[in-house]
């Protein structure tokens, strides 16, 4: 504890002269890349880093997919304190198993395990018996890799302390009966289960094996997953049978999240109707409910649910805190309003494709006792500024998602501008002008963390200057300026000069954005020191009109040192893009217009996964009679339910170009 010489007098003390324990303390507060950066400065720091890595409790590498060579020096074999490991396993396979699986692990998150076989699951059950949290995605998806239900069985019976299990791969590859059987072995401590993807039939059988064996209903239902509180599933069809089985068997359920992506309009026996909706919350504990039908593959909706179903559901759900309904095209203001007024504790409301949702729902929202923090109203085209004005009476709002509500305009922004806690604001496709955005500059802009104005075609450079001029250091981290035909390099220059620590910038399909923007962002100096480059982790300049080969010179190192995700147009500059990808092997480069980022892996609740410009046509098809009642009650109709013509199917699939 003796102070080194020279500390008091000259002040030219270097960090390397601090006692090792102090350097170590500083290192424990850094992430792995920063530890390595510090380690590269001097030998004293390198020694410290080596020490730290041998007892670091959390080893997280979020943005890159390391190879074994990269990992080996970092993750020592015997670190008895390693509790949490999060790695992208794209470049790893079964040979890394011994290395990754430490018996002390309690939290494990392995993404992109496509090159692993089912042995991964079996080894987990054998080595990581203390596991509490497990996330696995894409297991054995690569050709030639296989996973068997026996592997799953070993994992479930071995990890007896498991509380949270997230399986992000298609479990319908397992044989149905064997699959249902192994879940009886699952730890009784399991309180949270998330599966993407499982068929509704398999899920029903999992919870009620008697169904498959045609036993009489006098047999008591065997208790599978008795303590489950949270269930999140992505299924083929949300059906009445599945919903009622879930509601009846899971007595402790507080959180239910069901999403389906039908490939075609479901028949009555395979759909959710008012009956199914009525069964929800059979045990009265439900606090979070999410039912979403996605139009990613086909324009299908919950056509057999109407206000009656919602009313009956609302009757039993007065303790609900979070509701998300997507694709309920027949529900009107009556239904939504009943929900708002019955659920006094509601703080999260999400509605997607609220075709009949109008301002009336929010007319007297100030009179309800709800204090909303997250409101998401996407594709609700009947909403006008008035609804937003009413919504803005919720002073606790932190997330407001009004994407694709085409009738919202500048007046809505005036109402939002004073919300004291707003952090996320999504306004894609709204009818905004520069004047509207300027309302934000005085209040909300100082606090916003995430802002998206994708596709607000009337915006020009002026909105950027009103938002960022004079704002020296706001909290903004994510900005989406895609699909703005009038956005030019001048705006990006202004952004770069404003010295905001933006980490995600999307400017897809902006015809006027060119090389100058890339140069400006590359030279962005966050402070007066040597730091050359910017804080950007994600940059999307896919299909920007002015990008040429010159821009790629500025995308190389040492520029954009933190860039992990880059979206460019591959077709025009093939060689240059390949060269860039080779020189920066740990950067994800997409060239076909795919959306960037890892959010979609983490959070199934984040429903802005699909971004399709052709939604209007669904809407028109739906309202124009394609969404009629003609096929509903006739389940004798076993014919192909080809409700759509080929042309509509193409539109439905959606494409970016």
């Amino acid at each position, binding site marked *: *504890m*003796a*102070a*080194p010489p020279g*500390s*008091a007098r000259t*002040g*030219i*003390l*270097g*960090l*390397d002269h*601090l*006692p090792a*324990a*102090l350097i170590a*303390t*500083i*290192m424990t*507060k*850094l*992430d*792995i*890349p*920063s530890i*390595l*950066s*510090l*380690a*590269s*400065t*001097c*030998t*004293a*720091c*390198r020694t410290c880093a080596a020490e730290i890595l041998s007892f670091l409790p959390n080893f997280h590498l979020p943005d*890159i997919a*390391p190879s074994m060579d*990269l990992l080996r*020096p970092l993750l020592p074999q015997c670190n008895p304190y390693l509790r949490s490991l999060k790695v992208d396993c794209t470049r790893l396979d079964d040979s890394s198993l011994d290395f990754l699986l430490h018996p002390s692990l309690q939290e494990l998150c392995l993404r992109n395990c496509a090159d692993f076989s089912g042995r991964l699951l079996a080894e987990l059950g054998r080595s990581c018996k203390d596991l509490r949290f497990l996330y696995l995605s894409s297991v054995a998806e690569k050709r030639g890799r296989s996973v068997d239900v026996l592997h799953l069985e070993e994992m479930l019976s071995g990890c007896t302390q498991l509380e949270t299990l997230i399986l992000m791969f298609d479990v319908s590859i397992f044989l149905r009966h064997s699959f249902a059987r192994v879940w009886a072995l699952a730890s009784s401590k399991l309180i949270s289960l998330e599966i993407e993807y499982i068929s509704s039939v398999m899920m029903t059988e999992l919870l009620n094996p008697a169904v498959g064996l045609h036993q009489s209903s006098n047999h008591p239902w065997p208790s599978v997953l008795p303590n489950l509180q949270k269930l999140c599933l992505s299924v083929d069809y949300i059906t009445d049978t599945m919903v009622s089985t879930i509601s009846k068997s899971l007595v402790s359920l507080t959180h239910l999240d069901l999403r389906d992506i039908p490939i075609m309009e479901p028949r009555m026996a395979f759909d959710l109707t008012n009956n199914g909706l009525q069964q929800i919350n059979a045990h009265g504990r439900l606090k979070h409910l999410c039912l979403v039908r996605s139009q990613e593959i086909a324009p299908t909706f919950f056509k057999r649910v109407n206000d009656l179903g919602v009313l009956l559901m609302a009757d039993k759900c007065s303790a609900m805190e979070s509701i998300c309904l997507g694709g309920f095209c027949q529900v009107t203001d009556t239904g939504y309003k009943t929900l708002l007024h019955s659920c006094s504790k509601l703080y999260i409301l999400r509605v997607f494709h609220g075709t009949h949702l109008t301002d009336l729902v929010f007319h007297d929202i100030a009179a309800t006792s709800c204090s909303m923090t997250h409101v998401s109203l996407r594709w609700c085209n009947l909403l006008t500024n008035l609804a937003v004005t009413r919504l803005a009476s919720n002073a606790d709002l932190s997330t407001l998602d009004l994407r694709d509500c085409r009738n919202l305009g500048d007046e809505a922004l005036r109402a939002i501008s004073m919300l004291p806690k707003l952090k996320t604001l999504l306004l894609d496709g709204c009818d905004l002008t520069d004047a509207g955005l300027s309302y934000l500059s005085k209040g909300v802009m100082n606090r916003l963390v995430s802002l998206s104005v994708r596709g607000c075609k009337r915006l020009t450079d002026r909105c950027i200057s009103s938002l960022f001029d004079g704002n020296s250091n706001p909290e903004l981290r994510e900005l989406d300026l895609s699909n703005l035909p009038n956005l030019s390099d001048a705006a990006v220059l202004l952004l770069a000069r404003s010295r905001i620590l933006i980490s995600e910038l999307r400017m897809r399909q902006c015809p006027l954005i060119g090389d100058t923007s890339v140069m400006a962002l590359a030279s962005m100096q966050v402070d007066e*020191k*040597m*730091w050359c480059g910017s*804080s950007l982790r994600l940059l999307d300049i896919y299909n920007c009109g002015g990008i040429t080969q010159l821009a790629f010179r500025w995308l190389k190192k*040492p520029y954009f*040192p*933190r860039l992990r995700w880059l979206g460019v147009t591959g077709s025009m500059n093939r060689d240059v893009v390949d060269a860039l990808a080779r020189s920066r*092997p*740990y950067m994800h480069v997409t060239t076909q217009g795919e959306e960037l980022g890892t959010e979609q892996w983490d959070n199934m609740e984040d429903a802005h996964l699909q971004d399709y410009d052709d939604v209007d046509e669904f809407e028109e098809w739906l309202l124009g009679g394609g969404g009629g009642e003609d096929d509903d009650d006739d389940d004798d109709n076993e014919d192909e339910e080809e409700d759509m013509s080929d042309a509509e199917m193409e539109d439905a699939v959606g494409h970016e170009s």
Partner: protein
Amino acid sequence: MAETPASAAALKTVTLVSSDGERFEIAESSAKQSITIGNIIDDGCCDASIPVPNVTGKVLTKVIEYLKNHGGGGGDAEKKEKDDELVSAPVPVLLDYILAANYLDIKGLVDLVAQEIADSMKDKSPEWVRSEFNIENDYTPEEEEAVKSHFAWAF
């Protein structure tokens, strides 16, 4: 200077003397946040004044401010504000603070300054860290090459 609490026992103060002779009075309860000072007090050997030979007056002033800030009472927002002010000092000064806090064994202050240093060096290149924190590069050229290529992905 001395605190103004009600009870007599809490009025007990100690005097700390910096390396350059400046004297500071502080309530005993606040001073005990420093384990080092606490030990000296408990040992009863320096009832009059406690010398702190490794810390200058300038730095000790700030340390004592920290101790008083966290001595008890006062809102969290206020404490945070004062802490933020403390760590907004330039790097050489921060290093002085953390050394003093280390010597005096004040865990809270060590963590506070360490976090600030860590936050400022997050995501930075080794060159930047070296220049900012006056770190002498004692790698041989070969070592440096090796280290750079090994960890190039990180920065």
